[in-house]
């Protein structure tokens, strides 16, 4: 199972036939495992890693640090969920350290992101403070180095 998932995590478009060749697990079994993982929500969806920087700034991204107060019984969950529902918010994480929630927010322009934070997030009751870091350049994303893969400089034939 883990072997199959790792292959899919690296290449969402790999065929079941190829997975079968690479792992020596029969193809029908591969299909079963994938169907099962999809059903159980272990595989959530199949996405594509895109380097948007190559398309002339379609979007701007910002990391937002939020200080929030937790609530009796629900802790941080209620406020986190509330923030997570905004489509501008790409990810929400509870983190250790000197702030509590860490967001990744996407907008068309810096202004749009700044206003979104100022108008929708900062005024929320439990939010005590925000710090916005605009992302200027991405070097590595989801385990992939975006600056081009390193190639071995081997000769064409060696013993």
């Amino acid at each position, binding site marked *: 199972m883990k072997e199959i998932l790792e292959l899919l995590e690296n290449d969402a478009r790999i065929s079941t036939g190829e997975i079968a060749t690479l792992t020596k697990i029969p193809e029908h079994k591969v299909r079963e495992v994938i169907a099962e993982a999809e059903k159980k929500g272990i595989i959530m969806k199949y996405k594509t890693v895109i380097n948007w920087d190559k398309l002339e700034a379609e979007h701007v991204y910002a990391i937002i640090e939020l200080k929030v107060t937790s609530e009796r019984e629900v802790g941080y969950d209620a406020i986190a969920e509330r923030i997570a529902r905004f489509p501008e918010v790409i990810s929400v994480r509870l983190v250790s350290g000197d702030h509590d929630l860490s967001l990744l927010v996407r907008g068309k322009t810096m202004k749009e992101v700044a206003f979104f934070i100022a108008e929708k997030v900062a005024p929320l009751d439990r939010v005590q403070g925000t710090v916005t870091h605009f992302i200027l350049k991405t070097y590595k994303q989801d385990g992939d180095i975006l600056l081009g893969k390193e190639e071995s400089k*081997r*000769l*064409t*034939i*060696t013993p």
Partner: protein
Amino acid sequence: MIADKVKRIPPSGIRKYFEMTVGMEGIISLGVGEPDFVTPWSIREACIYALEKGYTSYTSNWGLLELRNEISHCIASDYNVRYNPENQIIVTTGVSEASDLAIRAIVNPGDEVIIVEPCYVSYKPCVLLAGGKPVVVPTDLCNDFKVVPERIGEKITPKTKAIILSYPNNPTGAIMGKKDLEGIADIVKDHDLFVISDEVYDKLTYDGTHTCFSSLDGMYDKTILLNGFSKAYAMTGWRIGYAASNLEVIAAMLKIHQYTMLCAPITAQMAAIEALKNCREEMLSMVREYDMRRRLIVKGLNDLGLDCFEPKGAFYSFPSVESTGMTSEVFAEKLLKEQKVAVVPGDVFGDAGEGFIRCAYAVSRREIKEALERIGEFLK
């Protein structure tokens, strides 16, 4: 002007194929005997740090003690064989130097050394340069390219000094299990021989487990164990390896090493320490990737009608080209010219390799697929 001994050594067959590829564009090469991975970053980083700190000197002839400690520890935990890091391990510039030292340390002029072919290209010339006489024992497909003890037995004479073994094998990908090796050990005992065991591909064993020759009953004192970092840790260009054996042999090897090499580069030694200390996981993930590529290429070659023995170790497949009616050499040359796929003809690794080609799968899966397609076109 040139010494006769050197003149008598034929030029490397590999070199010829390399020359043919020079200047050719768009080649996919399955001809490379080294990893396509760049050395893991933490190893490179350790070397950069060492340079920044000013580690630019010679080390002791033995190599850094910290590295020998790590090597000793690694052999003990993998194979339960103990070598004293103080005086039974010597750090060399790759297995290449280690094998030369081992041969020179034990071979007297006229001594016979049994070489199991097909095999890595260096053993025979090194034996010749040491004044010894290489005696070839062939392996074949029917025996899964394992060396059969009786075949060695037939070649033993009073002059036989040593056997050079290398499993997992370059170019066949064959391995020898414990039982198989015990048959060889019996001969070694009966005739009081040495075994030079080049185990540079030990970590790249996919089916079954690797048996270290010196771990066999009675073989500890009879074995010169060679290993290195080139393959498992993708460190070919660093030139770092080691030899481990009994006190007497290592002392003799050290004598040659101290006058001819002095020591392995300190930067590579520092990097090797990092490899053994912190890079096992990354090494294993490379091994898993090779394993998948192995399945891909073996299935692909068989589907194309090139009968391919299932390699169990290293990163080579060794399909037969007999069904095409071509010799290894003709096949390799035509394939390169017509489809720009580089492979190495099997006869480069000894006569027993005739009829086969070596296709390394230390290339990306994308390239393997592309190469297979081109070979398919070629066979049409």
